[in-house]
């Protein structure tokens, strides 16, 4: 007969409700107005970038682009919890995290505009470029974390994927080795409820995505992904555990994709505007602004200055991007190997002389 041998719990971390009210005592860092202003500013900046990128794409001046609209709290929450010396391994939707980490709007525009130089970040030299093949960044994070642990650095590898990425074998294989070797890695899931047209509930029967951590024997936790404080808090605790040698974590952030999947997608084919309208009531910027106004006397003037500053920055980045010539065609050979093999020199010359 069956006898009970093991039991597991999953928690969810939430700090602010949709109106910006604190649900309970806020974590230490979230009581400081300056910190909250920085977090809010970063989310506004990410949204300004998003708006600009979409405008450029709509006018044929940028390639297919994946908007992070409504998910700014995930990117900013994750990145703000990290140290500069940590390593970010983002999916294709975490512009907010990349911007906080020091990737420039110009670099992001170059990448999404079809120029490889956009992934040669001047800022976070150790961060990985955008990862398009879903879930393949998780094994990379395990490898980065392995290198970190062998060098005894205090750094942590932080990989971010979507709800869809939790269906990929790579995700499980990597999470399993992170647990096995107690590697300093944190896997964050931006559960925006959709994988293109596939709903979260059509992706897995698991009640939460956080519970998938149980399969790897690591810590799994949910966080309100519309609440930058909750995301930052959950990820900060995960980073502290990883740095303390307590191993990795899986953090599921509950957010919502307010926009189309990408500029090549038309979400009206598969979801009701009504559902989207509902979720606009929970989006992260309004919520934190309300809290700032109520608890840290955020002023209209500050708000306007912030918006203006962000818009100006993005206009400038766009101008520089549009003024940047493409590389010479032969550049396609110049970073294939450290030194171009003899066998390829004729091909390079052909391109050069075409």
């Amino acid at each position, binding site marked *: 007969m069956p006898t009970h041998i093991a039991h597991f719990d999953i928690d969810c971390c939430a700090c602010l409700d949709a109106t910006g009210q604190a649900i309970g005592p806020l974590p230490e860092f979230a009581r400081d107005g300056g910190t909250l202003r920085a977090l809010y500013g970063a989310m506004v900046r990410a949204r300004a970038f998003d708006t600009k990128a979409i405008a450029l794409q709509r006018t044929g001046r940028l390639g297919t682009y994946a908007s992070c609209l409504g998910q700014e709290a995930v990117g900013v929450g994750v990145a703000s919890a990290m140290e500069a010396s940590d390593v970010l391994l983002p999916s294709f939707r975490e512009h907010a995290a990349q911007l906080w980490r020091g990737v420039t709007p110009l670099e992001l525009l170059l990448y999404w505009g079809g120029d490889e130089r956009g992934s040669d970040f001047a800022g976070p030299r150790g961060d990985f470029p955008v990862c398009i093949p*879903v879930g393949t960044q998780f094994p990379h994070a395990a490898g980065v974390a392995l290198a970190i642990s062998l060098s005894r650095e205090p750094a942590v590898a932080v990989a971010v994927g979507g709800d869809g990425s939790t269906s990929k*074998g790579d995700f499980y294989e990597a999470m399993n080795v992170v647990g096995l070797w107690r590697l300093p890695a944190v896997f964050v899931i931006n559960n925006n409820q959709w994988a293109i*047209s*596939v709903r979260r509930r059509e992706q897995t029967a698991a009640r939460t995505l956080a519970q998938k951590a149980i399969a790897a024997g690591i810590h799994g936790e949910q966080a309100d992904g519309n609440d930058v404080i909750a995301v930052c808090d959950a990820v900060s605790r995960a980073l502290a555990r990883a740095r303390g040698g307590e191993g990795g974590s899986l953090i599921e952030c509950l957010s919502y994709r307010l926009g189309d999947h990408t500029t090549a997608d038309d979400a009206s084919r598969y979801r009701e505007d009504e559902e989207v309208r509902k979720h606009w009531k929970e989006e992260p910027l309004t919520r934190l602004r309300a809290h700032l106004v109520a608890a840290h006397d955020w002023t209209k003037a500050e708000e306007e200055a912030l918006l203006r500053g962000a818009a100006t920055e993005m206009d400038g980045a766009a101008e520089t991007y549009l003024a940047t010539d493409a590389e010479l065609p032969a550049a396609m050979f110049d970073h294939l190997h450290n030194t171009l093999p003899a066998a390829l020199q004729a091909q390079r010359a052909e*391109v050069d002389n075409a």
Partner: protein
Amino acid sequence: MPELTLVEAVRAALGRAMEEDPSVIVFGEDVGIDGGVFRATDGLVQRYGFDRVRDTPLSEALIAGMAVGAAARGLRPVAEIQFMGFLYPAIDQLVNHASRLRTRTRGRLTCPMVLRAPYGGGIHAPEHHSESTEAMLAHIPGLRVVVPSSPARAYGLLLAAIRDPDPVVFLEPKRIYRALREPVADNGAALPLDTAFVLSEGADVTLVTWGAMVTEAMSAAAGLAEAGIGVEVIDLATLKPLDADTVLGSVRKTGRCVIVHEAALTAGLGGEVAALVAEHALTSLLAPVKRIAGYDTVMPLPRLEAHYLPTEARIGRAIEEAMAFA
């Protein structure tokens, strides 16, 4: 007769196959309500229901392996990989199972599955969305690899692939999904697999290609016709098993062979075609064989993409060189 684009022809063939055979099912990412990111499966779920048209989780290895299991149990799964750049996790199931289930069980279990995937470059797609690695698949014994190059051939070849009792990988050149329309009769008539198509006769040069490059090849041929050069354009269509007889027959006639594909040159399928010519039509050759292909470097992002892919001009020059050779 309705004028269809290539992607509409794919959709028509899928609908026809599901209509005539209840064992045909379709699954993959976003193939349901969304109708596939290129709309190849648009309307199928409304007509045939959620049982037969299924959105899968985001798991390519599963998509291929589940197709093997379903096929072995008597269904005819037509599974979609959203882009060829995401097909690699499925290769294990193709090599180790789909292609050998019949052989390893001496015919007891079979694998009548089709794995569809849009492939190729030229549409300014994001990174990893312009893959063209058909040669890797064409190396797998027991697997058929089919690439249509026009709406009518897409319709007839996909029907043939679905009806074939063995596994077929069906690669759709997305660059020409909507580039041209032609009359396609949705009459359930399949085209033969394992057979190349001679698209234009010519006495001077044999031009072997497939997929989106057929368009470039045909315009190059048209251009050279004015210059009095007769180019025989052959669309391989079925890359594996390859119709060597048609290719060799043509080369024996023309004495010249130019091969065009957008995949990287080295170990691309053009090498196989050139090898067959060097083995079996050497004495007919009046000029060296020439391959025009993508370069042996990573497919660049959109800003440099056009410099990577073979162009009508490059093809034309190769043919002129072959003609000039003495």
